């Protein structure tokens, strides 16, 4: 079937024009698995189709070089487990993590965008490539709380050191000391962030009003909220500050380091 699309929404809005094009939607190659236990099965190279799994277990399966339209690692209200699976070279754009549990999996040279791991668990996984616009949660978040008997997402032993993070966050109590994280100018790792942020705020509260003080207070909102929400150590990406100039972020980070 054809799906109406528009190349540029701004132009469409200005002109009041109808859809300028159509994209072919073919669901015949979509894969959706229910309650299967698969060992050493390969889905490598899947393209132009979606992939979903409900209540499945995968052991030693190959999900490498995939370019799915969308992927649901754990669909429905049940967990799906991936043990020693390979996702190397894959690009995942529209990701639903669900109650997925990944153990000893490799995500080498991947490009993942939009991963919100509300109830997903990652144990001893190795990552490289790029991760964009994504958040990992230490506690089960949202509607998944109704389905999941546990409250905490297990998240340990993961190696992100060779991965580039673009606008990635860790929230609600992920123990960052149990992971290997990327290093560099684009990242800020604050151990015991609550204490550091409090003294930083105190310092600027005592200063007279200035542009810098305003920027500092604006900057502090999000990390302070994350600390209140249970995240003890903070990991921040410079790309995650769209409202402040790069110079302002650099100066604030230099003070916090």
């Amino acid at each position, binding site marked *: 079937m054809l799906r109406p699309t528009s190349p540029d929404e701004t132009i469409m809005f200005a002109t009041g024009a109808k859809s300028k094009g159509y994209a072919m939607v073919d669901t015949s190659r979509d894969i959706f698995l229910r309650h299967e236990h698969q060992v050493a099965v390969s889905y490598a190279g899947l393209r132009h189709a979606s992939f979903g799994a409900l209540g499945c277990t995968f052991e030693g399966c190959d999900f490498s070089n995939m370019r799915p339209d969308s992927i649901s690692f754990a669909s429905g209200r049940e967990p799906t487990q991936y043990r020693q699976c390979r996702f190397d070279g894959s690009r995942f754009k529209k990701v639903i993590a669900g109650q997925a549990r990944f153990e000893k999996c490799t995500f080498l040279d991947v490009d993942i965008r939009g991963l919100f791991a509300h109830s997903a668990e990652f144990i001893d996984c190795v990552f490289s490539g790029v991760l964009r616009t994504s958040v990992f949660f230490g506690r089960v978040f949202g509607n998944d709380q109704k389905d999941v008997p546990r409250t905490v997402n297990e998240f340990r032993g993961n190696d992100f050191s060779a991965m580039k993070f673009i*606008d990635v966050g860790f929230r609600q109590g992920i123990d960052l000391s149990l992971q290997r994280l990327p290093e560099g100018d684009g990242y800020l790792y604050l151990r015991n962030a609550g204490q550091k942020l409090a003294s930083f705020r105190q310092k600027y509260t005592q200063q007279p009003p200035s542009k810098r003080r305003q920027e500092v207070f604006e900057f502090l909102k999000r990390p302070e909220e994350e600390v209140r929400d249970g995240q003890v150590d903070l990991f921040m990406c410079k790309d995650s500050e769209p409202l402040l100039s790069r110079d302002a972020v650099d100066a604030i980070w230099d003070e916090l380091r």
Partner: protein
Amino acid sequence: MNGLGNAGTVDRGYVVDPILCTKLGICTPQAPQSLGDTVGNYVLVASLITGAGELVGGGELTAKQIIENVSRAERAQGLQYLKGFLSPAEARLLSNPKMAALTIGKAVHRATARALDRLYPGRFKYFETRGMDFLDKTKNKLIELATEAQKAYKMRKYGVGPEDVATYIP
């Protein structure tokens, strides 16, 4: 008897438009369970948005109705909940008046996609990039999700009718 027939238990996490509830005859008024519930003060029968998607008393829900109900329930859970569907940079944009509405819309779309996948596994396909938002694979039906204010524009944009646009309250 709670007026819900044998539809099952009431899911207190979902709040829907009371007018819609009354029209469908499937809801019972409840006291607000939390601050997030104050939007409607009504709870939705779990089976409305779960299981086979059948209305209490018969009649199958259309894809538009399902998406509309789910998106409204997701939006009604409040901003703090929706922040869970935003990256750190996107969450920052909520404090920018020019970007806030767009950012909330993005969160509602993602939350709806996740909720549909949770409640109707394998049935809906979500297209986050340009074009109509959801495909109901069982009916081969495309549905656009928009605010009420955007509805006419979206219909014009895609050349579709009102039955193809599900709306939520921003």
